[in-house]
């Protein structure tokens, strides 16, 4: 386009029409726009975004670390917390009258929960069973059945510190056992807990 053609085009073009109010407000819009550009130039957004992001990541990491610390599969959780009843108590609170047993084996922790609230409240018991290569730790209650390679057996305590297993094919107690192979090793103790309330019988 040469100069003459450009002059003709400009001569034919019309200025857009706006109300007076538009032009009255126009300077203010320009000023605000400039101020906005100016602030963007002197206080850039990127550092604030990075700080916020880093803070959020740090917070999430802290929360994750805390939750991992609480629920970590540390030796105390799988061993002592089963033996002293802490884990059993926590799970019992979650599944009242439904919790049958918690087992730790080579594959981790397993919780056996009844589908209905039909588990009798009874004395808690800790057992460690070694059968060949299998090694299990079980926290359960007197009156519950456990499975072994020699068949099922019921775990019972006499409320006087003694634990026994009564099975169809075998018997085990601290003092004597019957029907068990030499490769079967078992330890069992009652988990300490409160004694039941008793009353003295009325004289006859």
């Amino acid at each position, binding site marked *: 386009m040469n100069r003459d053609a450009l002059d003709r085009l400009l001569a034919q073009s019309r200025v857009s029409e706006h109300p007076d109010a538009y032009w009255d407000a126009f300077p203010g819009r320009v000023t605000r726009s400039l101020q906005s550009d100016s602030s963007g130039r002197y206080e850039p957004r990127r550092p604030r975004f990075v700080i916020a992001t880093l803070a959020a990541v740090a917070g999430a990491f802290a929360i994750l670390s805390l939750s991992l610390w609480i629920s970590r599969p540390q030796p105390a959780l799988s061993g002592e917390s089963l033996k002293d009843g802490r884990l059993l108590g926590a799970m019992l609170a979650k599944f009242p009258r439904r919790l049958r047993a918690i087992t730790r084996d080579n594959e981790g922790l397993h919780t056996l929960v009844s589908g209905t609230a039909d588990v009798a409240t009874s004395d808690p018991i800790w057992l460690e069973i070694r059968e060949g290569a299998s090694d299990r730790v079980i926290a359960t209650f007197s009156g519950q059945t456990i499975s072994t390679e020699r068949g099922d057996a019921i775990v019972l305590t006499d409320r006087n510190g003694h634990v026994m297993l009564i099975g169809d094919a075998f018997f085990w107690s601290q003092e004597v056992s019957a029907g068990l192979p030499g490769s079967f090793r078992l330890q069992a103790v009652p988990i300490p*807990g409160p004694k039941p309330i008793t009353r003295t019988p009325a004289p006859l």
Partner: protein
Amino acid sequence: MKAALIMLITVLAASAAADIPSGPVRVAVLKLKADAAVDDYLGAKESGSRLASLIANDLSVLAPIEVVASGEVARNLSLGAMEPSDSLTPSQARSAGDATGATNLVCGRIYRTDAGVVFAVKIVSTQTGEALGTMVQLGAGDTLSDALSRLGTQIGRIALSQRGIEAPRWADARISGTHTGGGTLSLGAVACVLSVDSRLVADEIHNWNRDQILKPGLHEIFVRYYDGTGSAGHEFVIDAKPGGIYETRFDRDGDHNPRLWIQERGAKNPATPVYEATIKEPRQWYEDNLIRMQPHVVPMSSMFFQPAPSVPMKK
């Protein structure tokens, strides 16, 4: 956190204890399971049902426990629900209690071991479904009567604890002989304890007044009468009450056979039937009763296996 969990367990246990009902303690003993090896050791067929009867009898003397007739229980209870190695739910336990009138059900199994046999039992509260257990061993040097008495006492303590009752102290009973006449040179006539559960008393004639210890429950007492020239005797079965003091008694008219029995001191009536024993020359009498003086595991008296006294069933 640990303190909170312990507190939680305490609260749960306390709520369970608060559920413990009061009232009489009625125990039903079901037939124990036993295999042929156990029968062989005990020298008795169907030893499981026999021994359940003996345990029930021993429990019946332990106040305040009452015993429900086991035969009635078996007729009213699904036996599958009372397998010793199976768990019972609280609702199943309550159903069993409703069917039998028992507050506690006892079932178990007898195992043959290298040293003898083990009696292992499960005690289930029919109110709560709580299951506890206990066991005793019968081995060399022990008697069946003492082993079953220990088992009965242990069952009784657990049954009472399941009802929230502290078991009383069930003391051993005692038995000794009686004596009449005699002087410086002669002993007179004496009725003494020759053996308790096949355990011979040493020099029984001269030790006629020495107490023999009886654990609560059934015992075989062989009573010997001796007057210096002749002997007579009979084996009695007594259900010894805790703390009871028993005496072997006799009377004799002239040359007639002596009559023997056992009586609790201070009681008006005999604790056993009165038996007229044939008087014999001492050596002949010993030979006739030699088999009674051999150690035996299972009591030889058929009276030993009489059904236990029981309370009526709840209808």
